[in-house]
């Protein structure tokens, strides 16, 4: 009885598989190109996800408006992971097995990406992601995974060079929030500072919900730090550090993570002056040059989306990066005429360079870190208030006043 059913089932599935195999070539030519998008769209870690999402939707509308790719429609299947690794794992498998996507974008949070990357690798799913954690890119272990954003090392290099060579501080305090990202970034940063001969006089992680960071600030001052390096995505913590610095009247430069420059921080500082003397990692494509202008490609995009995409509450680079992601995927399909994993991965391995909006990406079979180091720049954090407001008529008028990037980083 049992064996009968089992055999019946086996026969049935074999038949179905055969039928699918036969039908496949015909379908493959016309079926939509499905892109899975693992975004943290709600919850405490949603800010980047929301920005990426806007870019994806924009790029999708553009590519489908132009008739799709070789007559094939593009679809994006989005799953909100809420920054929760368990939800991300479920969603990854669902997108692969049930939705049968051809490529993935995301996830962006370290906890999620660390969990989903090996899972996607096992199933050879072509994946582009913007997560900065170094270990996520390893062409040997994860030949399917490509990074469309800087790695943590690139951020860290930029911040370190700026601290040591421009600010010329040798005694530094390195702090982060007590999240997974914060603790690991602090660890890497401290090691690199020491390697470069700097004196790390203070090192700590702080609970992002700490209501008053004056004690931490006092400890850092006592330690004799000449610059504070901060790795935190938490706007509350970042702004509290700036306020505490002002409260103890300590004029020390703060240097670090791009989140130091988000508009949310601007809202939370007690007074605008507290946001002075703060420098963040930025990107050439999203910064005003010495001439007070955005790079032409970015300017063109900003003009095009004016009134269509809200930029006031997000960061331009998230939007640009996601637009590039869709384009990198669709271009690979256009080039190879296929959505097979090997085809996409093969095409990506030969991107050299791809001129995207966010940067000129370069991939090779042995190098899946695509973002060019020379496009990572440092800028004054409060200059971002003009950039984040690019969508608004009133604020765009003022962008000429925006601070120029204080330093363009030398290529490493």
């Amino acid at each position, binding site marked *: 009885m049992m064996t009968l059913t089992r055999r019946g089932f086996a026969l049935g599935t074999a038949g179905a598989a055969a039928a699918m195999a036969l039908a496949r070539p015909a379908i493959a030519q016309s079926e939509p190109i499905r892109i899975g998008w693992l975004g943290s769209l709600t919850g405490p870690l949603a800010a980047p996800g929301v920005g990426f999402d806007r870019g994806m939707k924009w790029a999708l509308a553009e590519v489908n408006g132009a008739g799709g790719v070789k007559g094939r429609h593009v679809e994006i299947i989005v799953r909100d992971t*809420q920054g929760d690794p*368990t939800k991300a794992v479920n969603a990854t498998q669902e997108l*692969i097995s049930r939705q049968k996507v051809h490529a993935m974008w995301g996830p962006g949070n370290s906890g999620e990406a660390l969990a989903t990357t090996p899972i996607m690798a096992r199933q050879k799913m072509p994946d582009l992601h913007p997560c900065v954690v170094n270990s996520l890119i390893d062409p040997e272990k994860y030949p399917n995974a490509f990074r469309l954003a800087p790695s943590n090392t690139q951020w860290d290099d930029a911040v370190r060079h700026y601290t040591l060579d421009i600010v010329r501080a040798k005694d530094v305090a390195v702090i982060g929030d007590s999240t997974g990202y914060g603790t690991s970034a602090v*660890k890497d940063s401290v090691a690199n500072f020491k390697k470069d001969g700097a004196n790390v006089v203070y090192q700590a992680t702080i609970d992002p919900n700490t209501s008053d960071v004056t004690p931490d600030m006092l400890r850092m001052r006592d330690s004799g730090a000449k610059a504070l390096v901060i790795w935190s995505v938490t706007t509350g913590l970042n702004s509290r550090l700036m306020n505490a610095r002002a409260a103890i009247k300590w004029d020390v430069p703060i240097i670090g993570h791009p989140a130091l420059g988000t508009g949310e921080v601007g809202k939370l500082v007690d007074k605008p002056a507290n946001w002075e003397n703060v420098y963040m990692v930025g990107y050439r494509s999203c910064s005003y040059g010495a001439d007070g202008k955005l790079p032409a490609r970015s300017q063109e995009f900003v003009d095009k989306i004016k009134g269509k995409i809200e930029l006031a509450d997000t960061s331009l680079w998230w939007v640009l990066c996601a637009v590039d992601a869709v384009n990198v995927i669709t271009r690979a399909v256009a080039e190879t005429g296929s959505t097979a994993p090997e085809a996409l991965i093969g095409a990506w391995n030969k991107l050299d360079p791809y001129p995207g909006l966010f940067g000129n990406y370069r991939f090779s079979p042995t190098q899946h870190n695509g973002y060019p180091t020379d496009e990572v720049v440092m800028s004054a954090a409060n200059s971002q208030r003009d950039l984040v407001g690019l969508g608004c008529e009133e604020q765009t008028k003022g962008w000429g006043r925006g601070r120029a990037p204080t330093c363009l980083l030398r290529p490493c």
Partner: protein
Amino acid sequence: MTGLRALVPFLPVAALAIALPFTGNDYWAVIGTRAAIYWVLVAGLNLVVGFGGQLAIGWVALLTVGAYTASVLVASAAWPIYMALAAAAGLGAVSGVVVGLPALRLRTFYFAMATLGFATIVTQVALAWESVTGGGIGVSGPAFPAPFDTAWGFYALCAVAAALCTWMTVNVGDSRFGRALVAIRDAEVAAEATGISKPALLVTVFLFAGATAGVAGGLFATLQSYITPDAFTFDLSVLFFIAILIGGRGSIIGPLLGTILLTVLPEFAAPLVAWSTFLYAALLGVIVLVMPGGIANLLDFRGRKPLESNRAIVPRPALLGEFLNHTTAEASIRLAGVALGFGAVRAIDGLDLVIRPGEVHGLIGPNGSGKTTTLNVISGFNRPDTGSLRLGAHPLPAGMPQTRARLGIARTFQTPRLIGEASLLENVMIGGTIEGRATFGETLVSLPRHRRDERVLRDAAMLALRTVGLESLAEARADRLQHSELRFMEIARALMLRPAFLLLDEPAAGLSPDEIRRLGELIAAIAARGTGVLLVEHHADLIFDICDHVTVLNLGRELAAGTPADIRAHQEVVSAYLGG
């Protein structure tokens, strides 16, 4: 036989689990695996929360411990995965006791808060202890060798683990341990009076629940492929906890269904993901307010069968001979100069009292004269300020109620203490908890000694019920019985100890004259078998009918003492109390 019957409700779930691979879709393998892993944890936690009533809301801490133990041992120390999993179980068990220990000292809400604190701290430690845990960057989950290295192979492994946990907790749930846990939850004082040691029992259960959580953690790490502290969210803790309450406290099939529901439901409600925790919370609220019995209550068809409405309690004192045989003269309980105050009130103010084997000793007096307090002092619930308390030549430890059962001192309560959801038979079986010989470990895997224990207990309880005349209601839920029936049930439960002394706190309150008469006969028969009875009562007729000796209390002092005839003739008593 009963063991197998207990597994019947699980057959549909088992069938579903066996059918799942036929979808052939790896996605369902992941969801099924996740449900199985969560159940491994919830099965253990269910004994803590659902049975023991200990509100451990931060149990994700133990998942974290297990996940990191297994992952780190495999990744850094290159242990074989199965040994690492065993280590995760071991460390989980120890951590379970550490997290659970405050439950022995703290009140419910305090304990809930303490477990919450643990959940936060464990994550923080995982972040800070970088050299071992990898800090924020985390560590790879352990990989299983073939045949468990595929999605469906791993599913099979987890499903077997889940089935094993189900079987073990069903064994415990149906044992004296399970009943004792529920007794601690719903009738703590009765549990203590029957000699159940709350600390020993809870520590055992925390060990077990910690071990299953540790194993679940190891499997969880494999499923996730990589773990970081942010995988262990408070939401996960809430999910485990709510799964149990949705399922219904004191049930096993209910929480199992609850776990499956909460794991699978979000997969069908993708647009609502932002609201998922809100909806879990709302669900919890609805369950607590509208159907505290949970799913299990909906499935409890037996408990809804109507009871015979025209029923009478007819005790059979003759059956007492089967378990009360105090033929040799035994020691007496002696109180000398006992005094006890609550704040400014002197509840007992220097009392001497002797309860002799084979005698019924009546204790009467107006409200607040110290009758129940005296009973509480003897049974260890109140510690006297001064005075001595002896059983024969040995002092009775003051203020330790759980020691009395072993000394053969049983009691009943003014308000019957019972487990409403359990059957009458199970309630009575609780009385014999300390008679069991099988250890918790033997019970888990249903070894012969456990099965013999259960048989013996069941037979004894049935006999006790026949003795008090309630055997026709043995399978009825206790909360559906009448007040008078519960009073006889309490006596049956006390008889399970084969007591040398029986302390009865107003057993006749709320009984009809007929029932009082039968109660009197039963008590007299118990005493005739050599048991010393202390009878706290208001019904003067009952006292004078069956007592060998009567003490009258007033304001915590002895007003009069003697034979019923002496008391009846006592001028002061008659005028002050008997209203004669």
